[in-house]
Structure formats: structure tokens, C-alpha cells
């Protein structure tokens, strides 16, 4: 009897492990119970507008001026980290990548991207932590730490003004389709899809706030509501919370896929990091 039970337990655990690993390797798209849950995206490419165009003139000027843009504080932090040795290898970014102004120019405009060795989709944050683990022998930076915000801001800053251009072909295609599905799926207790606000109702007011089109041109952004710099995933979590949907983890496959879809949706729009947003 005991043998049977333990055997059963083993089987059940194995089964759960398979489910878990399967789920981790490829997230299960939430089962959509009816077609009405999908609302096709509708923003025309020629209608696209950066969040900057919704700012007051004063805030726009502040964003442009490196002396007063509060995000530049983090860019400076990142610049220092770029040359600070870390980890068991006692190496800094500059040891491999050299001068960031040359080597990082245009890099952020291509992210998220598929890692050639692992085949996984990586955003800048995950790439930085991959470098820290594998090249520097250092602990990863947590999402939203000043270090991570600083380095991502510094790296993206090297692409300021360059057009966003991500690849959605080959191994990126399934992430892209998943991201598009998440963007167009009604979700949460309030049953709203991203596209309903950001494609269909941008420019209109929710209370006093104008709805933007949701383009990821300026991340990490200095958001007035946060009084701090924050990542795209932090912003996505705020949207999930707003519609009373599951707030997913930083770096989750869902938000990564959405990040890829959003970058494609903003293709050709210039990088504005560090942008100011309300």
C-alpha cells in the first residue's frame, strides 16, 4: 500500500513537473472562451504619435534639455557602471564592449531580440543580467534597481533619435504573435483589451488624463506619477492592475512578448530615452 502511494505520488509529481516546465518554457495563452474576447488592433501607421506629443510644452522642453531632464541622473549612474568592474571576473562592460557611444549605438532600437546562443527572447534588462552572470560572474541586478535602470537608460540613450527596428521573423515570430494576442485580448475583471484604449480611444480623456497610444519609445521613462525612472514592465504592470487583470512578473514571457509586439507597433519611431511621461 505504501509502495503504491509513493509510486502514485511520484507519478503525480512528475506530471505536475512536466506541466510546470512546459508552462515555463512556453506560456499557455489564456483560454479564450468566446471570439468576442479578441478585438483586432486598429491604429494606422500614419496616425502614430509618441507619448511626447501629449506632454505640455514645458515638459517637452524639459525632456529635450539634458541639463533638466531628471532621467539624465540615471543615465549618469549607468555611465559610471559601464566602467566599474564587477563580479568574480572583475570585469566591466567596457572591457568587452569598449566605448558605449560607438558599440551601443542603435542596440536598444533592435531590442527585444532573440539570443543567438539560447534562442530565447531577451530585452535589454535580461541581456545585461546575462552578461553579468556569464561574463562578469556577478549577481544579476533586480528589475527597477537604480543600477538596472541606470544601465538600461545609459544604453538606450546611445540610440536616442534612432528608429525602432525589431525583428519579428524566425524564432521571434511566435513571441510576436503571442504579444499581439495579449494586446488584443480583453482581460481582467474590467474586461478591456489594450487595443481598446490605445488604438481606439487615444487622445480622449479618462478623468483628467489623456490616453496615449502606448508606444515604448522612451523607456526607461521618468514618470511624474512615480517620481522616478521605471521600466516598460513596471508600466505594463500598472495597466494590468488598472483593468484588474493578473499583474505578471517583471521579465515574464507575457510582458516580453508584449514588449516585442509594442516595439514592432512603434517601428520607425525614434528612441527618446530617457523620456518624461505623466
Amino acid at each position: 500500500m505504501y509502495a503504491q502511494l509513493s509510486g502514485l505520488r511520484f507519478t503525480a509529481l512528475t506530471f505536475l513537473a512536466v506541466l510546470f516546465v512546459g508552462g515555463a518554457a512556453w506560456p499557455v495563452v489564456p483560454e479564450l472562451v468566446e471570439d468576442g474576447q479578441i478585438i483586432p488592433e486598429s491604429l494606422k501607421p500614419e496616425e502614430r504619435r509618441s507619448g511626447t506629443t501629449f506632454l505640455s510644452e514645458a515638459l517637452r522642453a524639459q525632456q529635450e534639455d539634458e541639463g533638466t531632464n531628471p532621467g539624465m541622473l540615471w543615465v549618469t549612474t549607468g555611465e559610471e557602471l559601464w566602467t566599474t568592474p564587477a563580479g568574480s571576473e572583475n570585469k566591466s562592460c567596457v572591457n568587452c564592449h569598449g566605448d558605449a557611444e560607438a558599440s551601443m549605438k542603435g542596440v536598444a532600437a533592435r531590442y527585444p531580440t532573440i539570443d543567438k546562443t539560447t534562442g530565447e527572447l531577451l530585452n535589454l534588462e535580461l541581456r545585461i543580467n546575462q552578461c553579468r552572470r556569464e561574463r562578469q560572474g556577478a549577481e544579476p541586478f533586480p528589475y527597477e534597481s537604480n543600477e538596472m535602470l541606470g544601465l538600461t537608460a545609459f544604453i538606450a540613450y546611445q540610440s536616442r533619435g534612432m528608429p525602432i527596428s525589431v525583428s519579428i521573423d524566425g524564432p521571434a515570430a511566435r513571441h510576436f504573435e503571442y504579444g499581439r494576442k495579449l494586446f488584443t485580448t480583453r482581460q481582467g475583471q474590467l474586461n478591456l483589451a489594450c487595443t481598446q484604449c490605445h488604438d481606439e480611444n487615444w487622445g480622449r480623456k479618462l478623468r483628467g488624463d489623456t490616453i496615449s497610444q502606448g508606444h515604448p519609445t522612451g523607456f526607461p521613462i521618468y514618470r511624474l506619477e512615480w517620481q522616478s525612472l521605471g521600466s516598460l514592465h513596471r508600466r505594463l504592470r500598472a495597466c494590468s492592475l488598472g483593468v484588474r487583470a493578473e499583474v505578471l512578473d517583471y521579465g515574464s514571457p507575457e510582458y516580453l512578448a508584449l514588449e516585442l509586439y509594442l516595439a514592432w507597433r512603434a517601428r520607425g519611431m525614434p528612441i527618446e530615452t530617457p523620456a518624461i511621461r505623466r
Partner: protein
Amino acid sequence: MPGRVLAAVVLALGLSAAWAAAEDYAPLLPESRFVGDEIPEPLTDTPGDPERGRQIVLNREVGNCLICHKVPEPEERFQGELGPDLSGVGSRLTAGQLRLRIVDQNRLNPRTVMPPYYRVDRLSLVAKQYRGKPVLTAQQVEDVVAYLQTLRE
């Protein structure tokens, strides 16, 4: 040994069924309550209270209706502009029509941005603490209906 295999298979099937179905919730109201574009009968025995309804409409945590709608409340600044202006809505719609629109406007307009305030089925990715719970209780729906009926032209 065969018993053990069978038990494992049964367990595995049971687990996968639970996994796949993601168990949708049962509808809160039977289909018979919906008549045309109305829910003619109140959801509760206690009549709606207009003043409580007004509080629900104005409260940002409960109804938060002003995120999208305007109401004739001059002290309320920054009212929304996504939904119709609710001034005079009590003259334009019956109680039953108001009730259905609050319960599940999705039935009338598949593309609506208005959340279903009294529905728990056919939703995706709902945060754990809200699963199986409607945005408003049946009594709160009745209170809001009573308030909206006071908004006359």
C-alpha cells in the same frame, strides 16, 4: 501494478482536465432574466437607494463611473469623455434598460469599452482576488439604477 497505473492515469486525466478547462464560472443570472435590451426584474428584493447609488457612481474605488462618463454634478471636476453623458439618462432609458447596460453592456455592443459590472463568466486573466466576483453586488447595481433614474431631462 495495473491498479497503480490506472490510478496514475485517472489522476493525470483529472489534473489535465482541471488545467485545460480553466474552469469558467457559472453565469450570475439565468438567460431568462434578459428580455430584449432589458433586465425587467430587479436583481434584489430591496429597492435601490438613489443616494447610495450616487455614492457608488462617484466613488473612484467602487463604481468609478466618472472615469468615462459625465453626470450633472458640478463639483466633480475632470469627468470622463469615453462613454455617453448620463445627464437625463433616466428619461431616455427604462430601469430595465439601465440594469442590463450596467450588468453587461457587452451583450448589446461586442466592442464596448464598458466593463460588465455584474458578470463573472467569459473573462480572461482576471486577478486572483477578483475571480468569481462581480465588480458590483446585485444591491449596488440596483442602487445605481435607482440613482440614474433620478437623472431626468
